[in-house]
């Protein structure tokens, strides 16, 4: 007890207990916090989004199939997307082709090439080729290809220029704002239905696109859902 009282009644220290620099401390702490805040915000903005997490995902495929050689009007073969993804206009799911589809040509073209060994094996045994899925929406999102494709929304809007890619990679973010940006203003994207697989197609001018698009929206009674239950059903 005595000791405690002595301690409390001790004489005040001479001069300043803190160094002079401490006067600036609150200011410095504030600046550091601000800069840290900016860095963290920038990092979250850059990394915690589909644009970072998913865009650019380009997995190796079991067979080195090359879209830029096979598909699209500018490619060597000029195959239409629907030759292989033949259900895209008819069903919600756009199928990856069966091995038979490749064999239509490859039974004659290089059937013994080592690059096609897995395709040949699949034809013989009936085992599926395990293509690695690239584009994925979360399972709580409902998506349907045929509604989009039959209303003049081209593959390029959501998949980018697949016809220029040797290996398929995700090019669009496919996050919720991506979908909604178009659902709010579909006239920016709609094109004649026979041009959906012509990925290089563009209206003559942006003004023409809006004019045409507005006409399609009206004529086809296009009404993309913006309410939550449209996509989360």
């Amino acid at each position, binding site marked *: 007890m005595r000791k405690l009282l002595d301690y409390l009644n001790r004489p005040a220290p001479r001069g300043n207990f803190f160094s002079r620099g401490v006067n600036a401390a609150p200011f410095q702490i504030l600046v550091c916090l601000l800069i840290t805040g900016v860095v963290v915000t920038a990092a979250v903005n850059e990394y915690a989004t589909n644009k970072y997490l998913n865009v650019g995902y380009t*997995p190796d495929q079991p067979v080195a199939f090359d879209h830029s050689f096979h598909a699209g009007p500018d490619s060597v073969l000029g195959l239409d997307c629907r*030759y292989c993804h033949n259900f895209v206009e008819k069903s919600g799911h756009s199928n990856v082709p069966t091995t038979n589809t490749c064999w239509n040509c490859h039974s004659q073209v290089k059937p013994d090439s080592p690059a096609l060994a897995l395709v040949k094996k699949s034809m013989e045994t009936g085992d*599926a080729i395990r293509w690695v899925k690239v584009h994925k929406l979360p399972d709580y999102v409902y998506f349907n290809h045929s509604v989009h494709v039959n209303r003049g929304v081209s593959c390029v809007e959501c998949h980018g220029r697949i016809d220029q890619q040797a290996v398929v990679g995700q090019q669009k973010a496919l996050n919720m704002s991506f979908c909604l940006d178009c659902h709010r203003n579909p006239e920016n994207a709609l094109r004649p239905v026979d041009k959906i697989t012509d990925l290089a197609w563009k209206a003559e001018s942006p003004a023409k696109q809006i004019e045409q698009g507005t006409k399609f929206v009206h004529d086809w009674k296009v009404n993309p859902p913006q309410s939550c239950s449209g996509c989360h059903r």
Partner: protein
Amino acid sequence: MSRYLAFLAVAVIAMVSFLGFQGKKSKDTPVYVFDDMDYQNKYKAQGENTFFADGRDARPPVAGTVARGNALEPSKVFSPNYRRTESLNPSFVTGKDAKGAFLVGFPAKSLATAKGELQDYAINDRVLEVGRGKFQIYCAVCHGLAADGNGIMKTRSKIEGDVAIVTIANLQAPIIRGYPNGQIFDVITNGKNTMMGYGDKLSPEERWAVVAYVRALQLSQNCPADLVPAAVKAQIK
């Protein structure tokens, strides 16, 4: 403070050099820190499944069963007088008549029913338009846009001796002009020799539409003078 800022700068540089920027190409499966309910354990179209020996979600239908989701109502399917429309009008799906000979013309009835009656089948603009679309997607690579057998898969061989399919038939040849419609339909459905069938990709309606369009192309390359409209004739002369 300067020490903290230097530390922060090093941390940022380390992070950016490790993580890169948006749009960076990567072969690694995207990582989800909080995967919420993004990927649920359910069967999906063309999904993978480790439970079954063939590794697929999709199961082949058991023999004698009807696939779900093709708009058949159980009450109808199980009634004693139920008939599949295909069995009411088999020539529409086989291209052959009751005796097994190829149909010469187009089938008289379609698969569509109204009040239990099969509807008439007729070739019109819409059918030809469907046929044109399907022909250009599925046939033109090999047989060419004019069905003359000069699609890219054949002409390739002339470009620097590239691999090509040399057996591709010229659909303008007299022998194929002489085929009954049903025979062309059959080639599309089941293929022939070195051509594989397209029955898995084209519905019977679409196959007949392609037959109609092939006939139109044949006519276009060999049009009798009296079928040419007068206005066009005037232009040619």
